[in-house]
């Protein structure tokens, strides 16, 4: 019995989102023993199959697209993966959502999977949706946790409204298809590293499976990436005009950070959509998010759930953001931010 997890590669390693999905997969596998629904209720005395000592009744396997030699085995071992399936195909040169799903559908049988897990990324959600359609199985997207229940079902907690609302759900399916809300799960290592066996797997693909495939080209990189910035300076309706973002950009520059904006700002056309932080924009996870003139609608807050510290600057002490921030300055950002810029420049000996 196996929890099969789609692992996306990032350079030579595994993508951070996939490491989180692997941690989620381990929890799910471990729950099979607690609920008595796993293959082997032997309470760890007789590890089943290739499980390492002390592992529960289900093991975690990874599916990685690419040659066996390029499987990030070190990262997978740390994450407790016992088996890695390297999907090799001459026809499969890049990302092809339907072909990936076909390959995983074959692997469900080959690996005796009871669940397929992927990070809720564009690739993870898309591939699992195809897999769900191919196999005629239900799919639960954006799960924060999943466990076997004693009634043979799965108990899930799902994110709705991008994490602003939680849904307790039951999933009744012979094979559970789950994507993992990346914000909700940490990329923790396994208690005991596993020994990874790499299997080369050649899927049976047709031309139709490969009809939709990605052509990749490097995006033009410019400035600090909003998604990975250590500091984000945010501006909302309170900025008042397109010209008002100058001071915020200067502040972001002084802090080595990026400018983010709320949905109102992009809907007005004041700033490009790629700077939007929120449910329909970019998710950020900085050390510091300084939210200026932003009311704190849930659409926006969903984008900064992973921020370590949130500091709000707002004229309204009753704005929703004050109930979500760690610290707040009550005042007009158009006065506070220029004064802050001056203070930081003085501190840095710049003026």
């Amino acid at each position, binding site marked *: 019995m196996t929890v099969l997890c789609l692992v996306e590669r990032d350079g030579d390693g595994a*993508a951070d989102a996939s490491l989180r999905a692997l941690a989620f997969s381990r929890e799910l596998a471990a729950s099979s023993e607690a609920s008595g629904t796993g293959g082997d209720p032997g309470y760890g005395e007789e590890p089943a199959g290739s499980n390492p000592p002390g592992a529960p009744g289900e093991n975690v396997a990874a599916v990685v697209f690419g040659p066996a030699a390029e499987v990030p085995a070190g990262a997978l071992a740390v994450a407790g993966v016992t088996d890695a399936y390297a999907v090799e195909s001459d026809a499969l040169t890049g*990302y092809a*959502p*339907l072909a990936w799903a076909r390959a995983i559908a074959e692997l469900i049988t080959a690996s005796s999977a009871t669940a397929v897990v992927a990070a*809720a*990324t*564009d690739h993870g*959600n*898309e591939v699992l*949706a*195809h897999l769900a*359609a*191919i196999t005629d199985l*239900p*799919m639960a997207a*954006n799960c924060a946790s999943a466990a076997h229940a004693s009634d043979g079902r799965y108990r899930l907690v799902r994110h709705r*409204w*991008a*994490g602003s609302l*939680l*849904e*307790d*759900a*039951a999933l*009744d*399916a012979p094979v559970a298809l789950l994507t993992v809300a990346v914000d909700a799960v940490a990329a923790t290592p396994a208690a005991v590293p596993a020994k990874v066996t790499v299997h080369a797997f050649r899927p049976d693909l047709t*031309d*139709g499976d490969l*009809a*939709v495939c990605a052509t*990749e*080209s*490097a*995006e033009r990189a410019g400035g600090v990436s909003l998604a990975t910035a250590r500091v984000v300076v945010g501006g909302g309706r309170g900025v008042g005009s397109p010209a008002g973002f100058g001071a915020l950009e200067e502040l972001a520059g002084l*802090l*080595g950070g990026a400018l983010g904006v709320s949905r109102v700002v992009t*809907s007005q056309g004041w700033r490009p*959509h790629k700077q*939007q932080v929120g449910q*329909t*924009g970019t998710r950020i996870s900085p*050390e510091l998010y300084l939210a200026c003139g932003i*009311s704190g*609608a849930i*659409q926006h807050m969903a984008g900064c759930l992973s921020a370590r510290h949130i*500091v709000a600057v707002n004229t309204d002490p009753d704005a929703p953001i004050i*109930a*979500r*921030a*760690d*610290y*707040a*300055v*009550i*005042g007009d950002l158009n006065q506070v931010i220029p*004064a*802050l810029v001056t*203070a*930081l420049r003085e*501190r840095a000996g710049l003026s």
Partner: protein
Amino acid sequence: MEILVCVKRVPMVGGKVVVTPDGQDVDTRMSGFAVSPHEECAVEEAVQITQRLGGTVTVLTLGPAEAADQLRDMLALGAGHGVLLETDGREWGPVATAAAIADAARRRGVGPDGGYDLLLFGNEAADTGDYQVPVRVAHALGLPCVTAIKNLEITESGAGAGAAGGSGAGGAAGARARASREYRGIEEAFDLALPAVISVKEGINLPRYPSLPGRLRAKRAVIEQFRPEYRGEGLRKELLRVPPGESKRAEILGTGTDAVPALVRLFEEFGVLS
């Protein structure tokens, strides 16, 4: 170019999500409803495509009778026809929703000779975020599909020998879509033969405001109605709840520019100043 755009009516939740006492729904007594943001962009995209290439936009929703309001909002943006798949107000899961949409699409058919050339969706609904309805509809109709698209170009036939390539249903007289998105710093581009299913994300365009003539036309438009049969499915909602820690209160550092020294000290404490 005949385009079907599927939209969802969702509550406008604003600053806080409130759940009904039975934990089954979002409390909407104090909020209005709107079309989910990605889907509003799908409608705008469809209107722009038909303005360039001709054809009509049909906007479809599955929901209660009141969801006709959202269809009229979208008709005011320039969609030509509205289709309401009316429910009794219960929340439908993604499997049943996709099946009902596929049935509705089959009524007109897909492909040349008056069928839909393109089915557009939002990438995921703002409320349930199931991420699968467009893909399931594509499989039900045997169409190619790509999701999370931020840039879309449609070309009609006659654009050279390349238009005859590819596989699939052959496309509406050789029309194709070039759809792209950014994924982890890389641009991914997809080339699809039409008819196809594509889901888009906000940012692909900036939806227009409805014009006055648009609103008047929308008010008078006839909305086609069907009543698909509800089906339960393997994923069942049990309880909705607001995550813990939602109602803390920020420590107030001060008022106006007087708070600047406290801000600088705080940034030093966080280790974000060099």
